């Protein structure tokens, strides 16, 4: 589904990703862990197509198509989704209106009929039921005055409505207390399927206990330096990121 090869990218002339490789197949959950400044969030933003980042080398294909040739909105309509680490507030636009607009652009792309306000309200109700949340965020302006936790929940709600093929969660767990982490993980779990893949970018292994990954990769210095399964995440938790630095230096040396 997603094939990242030797990806180099940076911002304002500073290279942050220095040859990232990653292969994601349908149904798989990949966790990407790493210390601050390792390039985790840059990787997520580059995959989603943030125009501030410049790709300087390598390739990314998504379902066989050259992702790097696509604008952010084309990537989204092709089935890619990024849950933002820092979602922005959109004043004056209600969540419901925004979600309806977004869903309809995706449906149009898929050759499906656009949903009117009533049909969309039905769909939204079903989604909320699925993830067990109330509709308190729906009629407020997008992320406007939302708490940190509400913003993260709102990202997951968008995921639920847009039903992407590949969802990238960028530090969705950061800043959440344990109850909120469980709540968010449970909601994401409800959308885990054989067709849908997840890339979970996180600083902490905690969320992975509630949303177990198939693969864990460690990103350091702009490269994937280690790959494994959940055991790697637990080892990281126990030994800390300094351990990685030592290991990789040893390997390199």
């Amino acid at each position, binding site marked *: 589904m997603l094939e990242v090869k030797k990806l180099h990218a940076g911002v304002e002339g500073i290279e942050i990703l220095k040859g990232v490789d990653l292969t994601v197949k349908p149904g798989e959950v990949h966790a990407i862990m790493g210390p601050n400044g390792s390039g985790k969030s840059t990787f997520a933003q580059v995959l*989603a*197509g*943030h*125009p*501030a980042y410049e790709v300087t080398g390598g390739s990314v294909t998504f379902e066989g198509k050259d992702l790097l040739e696509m*604008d*952010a*909105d084309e*990537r*989204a*309509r092709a089935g890619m*989704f*990024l849950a*933002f680490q820092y*979602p*922005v507030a*959109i*004043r*004056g*636009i209600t969540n419901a209106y*925004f979600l309806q*607009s*977004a*869903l309809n*652009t*995706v449906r149009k*792309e898929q050759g499906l009929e656009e949903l009117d306000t009533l049909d969309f309200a039905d769909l939204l109700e079903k989604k909320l039921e699925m993830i067990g949340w109330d509709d308190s965020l729906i009629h407020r*302006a997008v992320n406007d005055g939302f708490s940190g936790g509400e913003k993260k929940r709102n990202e997951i709600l*968008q995921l639920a409505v*847009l039903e992407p093929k590949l969802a990238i969660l960028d530090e969705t767990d950061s800043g959440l207390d344990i109850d909120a982490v469980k709540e968010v993980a449970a909601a994401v779990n409800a959308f885990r399927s054989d067709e849908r893949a997840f890339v979970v970018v996180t600083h902490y292994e905690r969320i992975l206990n509630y949303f177990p990954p198939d693969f864990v990769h460690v990103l350091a210095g702009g490269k994937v330096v280690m790959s494994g399964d959940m055991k790697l995440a637990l080892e990281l938790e126990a030994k800390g990121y300094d351990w990685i630095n030592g290991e990789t230096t040893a390997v390199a040396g």
Partner: protein
Amino acid sequence: MTRGRDEKSAAERYVAAFESFAGNGASGAPEWLKARRESAISRFAETGFPHSRMEAWRFTDVKPIAGEEFALAPKPAVSAAAEQAVESLLLGGANRHAAVFVNGYFAPELSSLNRLPEGVRLGSLRAALESDPTLLEEHLAQYAKDERNPLTALSTAFISDGGFAYVPADVVLEQPLQLLFLADPASGKNPMWHPRNLVVAGRSAEGSVLESYVALGDATYWTNAVTEVVLGGNAKIDAYRVQRESEQAYHTATTESYQARDSVFKLVNFTFGARLSRQDINAVLDGEGADCTLDGLSMLARRQHADHHTTLEHAQPHCTSWEYFNGVFDDKARGVFTGRIIVRPGAQQTDSKQTNNNLLLSESARADSQPQLEIYADDVKCTHGATLGPMDDDHLFYLQSRGLSRDEARQLLTYGFGSEILDVVKLDELKQQVDRLVRNRLAR
């Protein structure tokens, strides 16, 4: 204090026009009104037109108005276009209450005044001079200060007609009282009118008032309007104002509200039209516990210029005010916002919040925003904030990452600026009308 020769001769022209006006059509006015007019024209003769060396007029140059030879409009015949406009613009169908004016003249044939609730007045100010002389003498030209703005003085000098609305004590209106000012371009070259409006709400009266200025076609003309709104104790008035003048026209106005204790005044102000517009919004909270909300939206394009000069004056303790103005400027349009908050000595426990957001859709568009806080009490809460700039790339990326194209994302973000203000409109029909205006601007 020297003035340029042109400004001076422009002022002299209006003084001469006043003399002819006072000697003819206006000669039948009561003595108190004559005195107010005379004092106002003396005031204007002294100051002349506002100019950019006056602090309050730094960003808006009215030379284009002073330079044109505007003359009081002749009374127009009611046109088919005016009849159609009335049907599409007025709210409330057959049950509506509306006073309609064309080029400053009251048009009874276009107005709907038959179903007014008992005691409620709506209609022409000129007629009210006869029917309600005591109310008018008490309130007319007593709030908007001639010495504060030369164009207010000019308005007072030329008081001839306009809207009068009165809601007696304890009456709660079901339908809005509407004042519609149409500009009919068939009125000859460079006409002007000075509509003068007075809205009085008695103790515990409640209702809404809509004041609209709409052009029936493109033409150069000048509307110089003054509206005074007086709220008695515990009165609640929702005021709406929509300015849709021709893009060749000039619109200058003062909207003055005066609140007694515990009254609630909410103004929602929309500016879409005019080549150049300047509106002074002065709200005086002169009774404990009064509450005032000023919300505004300007959407301008091409070479339009709009200046909103707002003053919230807290004269008594325990009053609250909230001001929220959004501006969207495209092409070479320019917006000016001044948010002055005055807290008088003794006006403790004042709580005032002001926000002004400006979105620039083109590199040639421009906005100026200036808060001015003058606080003479020590136990108050006053905050202000302003934003100004082009559309944020992170916002665009966020919407694009959800599938919206860049154009769709831009439109949605722009619409958001409008819809924040639309959301506070409680009259559904008006909300739909203005929503269409906002969407039309986006579709350009």
